């Protein structure tokens, strides 16, 4: 019985492999605020959160999914489950959960209670960056899932306060999408409290534009 429960949990987490882009860290420093705005041809989202500690953040999340025709708005909680600090590297494991409401926009359908769960993980040195994120939605009228992974390299190592540049490659999988798997090369610029990502997905001919600010 216990093994069945574990298998169910593993399956749920596996399905939870719906992700938003393998984004930046979903927690900030104590008393820090963050605004994350993500856009690609399939979805646009905004996430505003406050971190009471370095391992928690809570805020509002809203996503319009242009590909699957739904809109979610709700509260999101992010938890840094585990951090591995090493000399010259850092790795993190995150859990995310959201609860709110969703509606399939455009057809006049009723709003329904909705939620999602997600997992994220990353490993970073000053030269290399690797990340994975998965997220699964239950929107009442439908379910959705996606996952993505990234690898990145910094072409130069900047000091604190410099403009930091990363060249990244993102692979994203959305089983329900017309193009389930896509590859997106992107450039990340990080300066002061601002992070900007610009990418392009050849398979769908879509532009990616992400922006994060922390204060």
């Amino acid at each position, binding site marked *: 019985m216990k093994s069945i429960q574990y298998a169910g949990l593993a399956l749920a987490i596996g399905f939870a492999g719906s992700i938003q882009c393998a984004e*930046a*860290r979903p927690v*900030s*420093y*104590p*008393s*820090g605020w963050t605004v994350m705005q993500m856009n690609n041809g399939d979805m646009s989202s905004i996430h505003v959160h406050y971190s009471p*500690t*370095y*391992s928690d953040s809570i805020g509002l999340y809203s996503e319009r999914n242009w590909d699957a025709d739904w809109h979610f708005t709700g509260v999101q909680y992010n938890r*840094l489950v585990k*951090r*591995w*600090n*090493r*000399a*010259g*590297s*850092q790795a993190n494991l995150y859990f995310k959960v959201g609860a709110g409401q969703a509606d399939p926009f455009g057809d006049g359908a009723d709003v329904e209670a909705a939620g999602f769960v997600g997992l994220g993980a990353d490993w*970073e*040195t*000053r030269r290399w960056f690797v990340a994975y994120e998965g997220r699964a939605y239950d929107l009442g009228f439908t379910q959705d899932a996606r996952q993505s992974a990234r690898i990145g390299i910094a072409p130069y190592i*900047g*000091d*604190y*306060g*410099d403009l*930091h540049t990363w060249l990244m490659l993102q692979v994203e999988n959305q089983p329900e999408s017309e193009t389930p798997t896509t590859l997106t090369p992107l450039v990340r610029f*990080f300066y*002061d*409290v601002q992070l900007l990502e610009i990418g392009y997905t050849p398979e769908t001919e879509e532009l990616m534009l992400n922006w994060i600010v*922390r204060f």
Partner: protein
Amino acid sequence: MKSLCLAVSATLFAFASPLALAENERSAEATSSAQTLVTAKVNGMVCDFCARAVTKVFGKEAAVENVHVDLDNGEIHVTLKSGTDLSDERVATLVKKSGYDLVSIARDAA
């Protein structure tokens, strides 16, 4: 003649004492105004955002005058205000609160 000598001595002493006292006060003031530079070596500090977190957390401490982060060496350099102190335990707490692991602490005159 003897009374004249005593009068001169008393006058000199009266003037010299405040000067000596002032000198002593200046010396004590110089000792207490010496700033301390605390260097904390930490693990996990690999990006500008990490450095910003550390700067924010340490910067809220009343005893801290300036925070400098050396990403190359994984070090936090904290200059304390004159006459203040930041215990090792407090430094460890602040590093932990920033999200990183303390390796060692060193102290020097700033």
